[in-house]
C-alpha cells in the first residue's frame, strides 16, 4: 500500500445561489477591488489515505464524494492526487 494525499474541491453548482460568494464579492468591492466579476466559495478537503496506486486512490475518493462529501443537489466536485508517500511524510 502507498500513501496519497487527495485534494477534493467541492464547488457550488453554477446557477445556484452562493450566499457566501456574494457576500465576499460585496466586501471586496467595498474595499476597492471593483474589477471582480464573480466570486464562488466551495470547500477544499484534503484526505491522506492508503491505496494500491493512484488510480485506486482516485476511485476511492470519488466514491466518498458521491456518498457523502458533496451534495449532488447543490455541489460539483473535482478530485486529484496532490501528494504521494514522499511528499506527505516530508
Amino acid at each position, binding site marked *: 500500500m502507498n500513501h496519497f494525499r487527495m485534494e477534493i474541491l467541492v464547488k457550488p453548482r453554477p*446557477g*445556484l*445561489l452562493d*450566499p*457566501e460568494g*456574494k*457576500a465576499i464579492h460585496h466586501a471586496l468591492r467595498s474595499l476597492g477591488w471593483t474589477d471582480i466579476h464573480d466570486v464562488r466559495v466551495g470547500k477544499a478537503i484534503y484526505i491522506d489515505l492508503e491505496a494500491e496506486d493512484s488510480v485506486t486512490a482516485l476511485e476511492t475518493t470519488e466514491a466518498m464524494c458521491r*456518498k*457523502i*462529501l458533496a*451534495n449532488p*443537489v*447543490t455541489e460539483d466536485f473535482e478530485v486529484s492526487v496532490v501528494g504521494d508517500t514522499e511528499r506527505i511524510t516530508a
Partner: protein
Amino acid sequence: MRVGVVTFPGSNCDYDLYKAAQQVGADVEFIWHRQKNLDGYDVVMLPGGFSYGDYLRAGAIARISPVMEDIVGFAENGGPVLGICNGFQILCEAGLLPGALIRNVSLRFESRDVHMLVEQTETPFTSEYQKGQILRIPIAHGEGNYEADGQLLEQLEAEGRIVFRYVNRGGEMTEEANPNGSRNSIAGLTNESGNVLGMMPHPERAMEEVLGSVDGMGVFLSLAANLSTVVL
C-alpha cells in the same frame, strides 16, 4: 399516539420535542440513532440541533446513521415523519425531501420570531390549523435557506406541497420577512405523498404562554388528532 424522537449525536432539541409531544398526550420515546427498529411508532420526529456539529453540511453526516435506513422505509410505508430545523436538513440530505438547505443569505445564524403562513391544512401535521392562519414561531438556524431549481419549485407549487411560508405580520411575502433567503419564502414543505414534513421554524418552542407563543401547538395537535383515530 406513539411518538419516537430520534437523537443523533449533537441533536439538541430532542428533549424539547419530547416535551411538546407529551404535552398533547402522546406516548413518547427517544430513539437512539443506532437503533434499527421502528416498529410500534405512529410518528417519527427528527429534532433540531447540530447533528455531528453540522460539519461538512448540516445533516450530511447524520444521514448515514443506522436509523436513517429504517426511517426511509417507515416513510415509504406512509408513516408520518416530521423534521424540524436540523431534522429538515437531514431529511433533505437523505433524499426524503427534495432540494437543499444552504447558508442563510445574511451568513449569520438567525434566531428570532418569524411569522409564517399556513398554506396547506390537508396534511397530518396541519389539519388543526386554518388555511391562511398566520403563526408566530421562533427560528434558530444558520443554514435554513431553502434552495431548489426552478423546475422543482414549480412542481412544489403546483402540487401544493409548500405548507408554510415566511410572511410579515400582515401576511405578505416580503424580502424582509424571509429570514434566510429561502426560494419562494419556503419555511416548510412535504414530500409527494404528504407524509413527510420538513420545516425550519420550531413549533415545539411555541407551546406555552410563558414562552411567548402557543402557535406551534397546532402541529402536535394535528398529529394527535389524525393518529389517534388511526390507532383506535
